[in-house]
């Protein structure tokens, strides 16, 4: 039974239960919806559970270096842009989580299972929503194409993964604590991965799919290219770019790869950049602390 079928069945069951008891008890849609959400998490298969738990540890590792900004409106704005772009992907049903990290570095990160982070430093250098959609599209693509997941699996080996799998399944969907040994092992691998970087080919693939996702979401697909031009114009000795440059091909090389797509992208060329909404929702929030 697929997740969707299961949820439909659960919804139908919830509806019947509700109508049967509506006369006596207040009908609480919120409870049913939250119940269905839990079911959705609980019925995901062992592979996806493993992906989620590996991602949870990888994300925890990144959040050990920088915390999410406390501005809820800004987080909600970035979250909505991100989810809208992710909904155009092959994995719209993942539990997508987006956050702006309170840090001056210029960077963005993805972790398995649907975690996407962008730093305040990068957000402060963007000009419009299409550029943000392009950046998030690149990170979403890493998740969709399972780049970090495959790299972590390569590092981890089978024994660890079977431990993780059985442990994760035992936890079901609970937010149970992670065994310290597992946390340390996977976190160390995540650190290696995030400081060494993925294969160049993975970065180029994420650029390509990211641009397409932003275009499919209705944005000007050239947003990511505009961001890469901005990065290309910066002094590469700028310390805030250090980690990005250590882990990614040069912006000029990424632009050269994306140029091959230009004929396809021109079909999307008239789509909006939504600069006013970006300026109103994000610019002030990130430049205030610049």
């Amino acid at each position, binding site marked *: 039974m697929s997740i969707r079928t299961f949820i439909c069945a659960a919804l139908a069951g919830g509806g019947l239960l509700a109508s049967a008891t509506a006369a006596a008890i207040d009908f609480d849609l919120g409870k049913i919806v939250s119940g269905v959400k839990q079911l959705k998490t609980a019925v995901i298969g062992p592979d996806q559970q493993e992906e989620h738990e590996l991602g949870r*540890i990888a*994300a*925890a*590792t*990144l*959040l*050990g*270096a920088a915390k*999410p900004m406390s501005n809820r409106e800004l*987080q909600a704005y970035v979250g*909505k*842009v991100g*989810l*809208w772009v992710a*909904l*155009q992907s*092959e994995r*719209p049903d993942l539990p997508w*989580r*987006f956050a702006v990290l309170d840090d001056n*570095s*210029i960077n963005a990160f993805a972790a398995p299972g649907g*975690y996407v982070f962008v*730093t305040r*430093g990068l957000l402060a250098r963007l000009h419009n929503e299409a550029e943000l959609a392009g950046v998030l599209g690149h990170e979403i693509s890493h998740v*969709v194409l399972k780049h970090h997941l495959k790299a972590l699996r390569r590092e981890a080996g089978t024994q660890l993964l079977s431990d993780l799998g059985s442990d994760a399944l035992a936890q079901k969907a609970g*937010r149970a*604590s*992670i065994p310290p040994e597992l*946390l340390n092992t996977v976190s160390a691998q995540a*650190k290696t991965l995030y*400081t060494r970087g993925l294969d160049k080919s993975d970065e180029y693939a994420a650029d390509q799919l990211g641009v397409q*996702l932003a*275009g*499919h*979401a*209705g944005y*000007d*697909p*050239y947003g990511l290219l505009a961001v890469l031009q901005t990065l*290309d*114009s910066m002094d*590469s000795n700028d*310390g*805030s770019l*250090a*980690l990005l*440059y*250590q882990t*990614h091909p*040069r912006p*000029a*090389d990424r632009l*050269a790869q994306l*140029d091959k797509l230009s004929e396809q*992208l*021109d079909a*999307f060329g008239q789509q*909006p950049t*939504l600069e006013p909404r970006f300026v109103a929702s994000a610019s002030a929030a990130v430049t205030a602390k610049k």
Partner: protein
Amino acid sequence: MIRKLFWALLWLPLLAVAEPGYISDATDLRDGPYADAKTLQSLPAAAPVEILGRQGGWYQVQVGQQQGWVRMSSLRLRAPGAKAGVLDGGRAVATQTVATTGVRGFGKGELQNATPDVPAVDALEAAVVAEADARAFAGQAGLQARPDSGKGGSP
């Protein structure tokens, strides 16, 4: 005269934000953002231009007294020869990281020394965006998903 003044005023906001750009490879200045638009003049590599705006894969630029369009890929935002970075195995490397961590943000060292923060990850669950909210948010701005979305294929 009035008409000329009107057109001049129309460009004011654009001129106010114009930023410099440089032609990376010799290209043509065209009278529209299309590959088959009329060529106004040929621009040599390294020619400086003022960027007036962008539409899709084309920049609108001012070259001397003439305005036109050039391909995005034919233009860079920095002068030729400026920086370029030190290369290490094909990757650009930022060599001088003398500034303090607060100014430059976290890098390799801070990440390697980071203590995983599991509660911070689990706290993200509280701020999850509902699919309906994301769809409404897109609708408010008139964003329309392309019919071939969700397949991850080429547009």
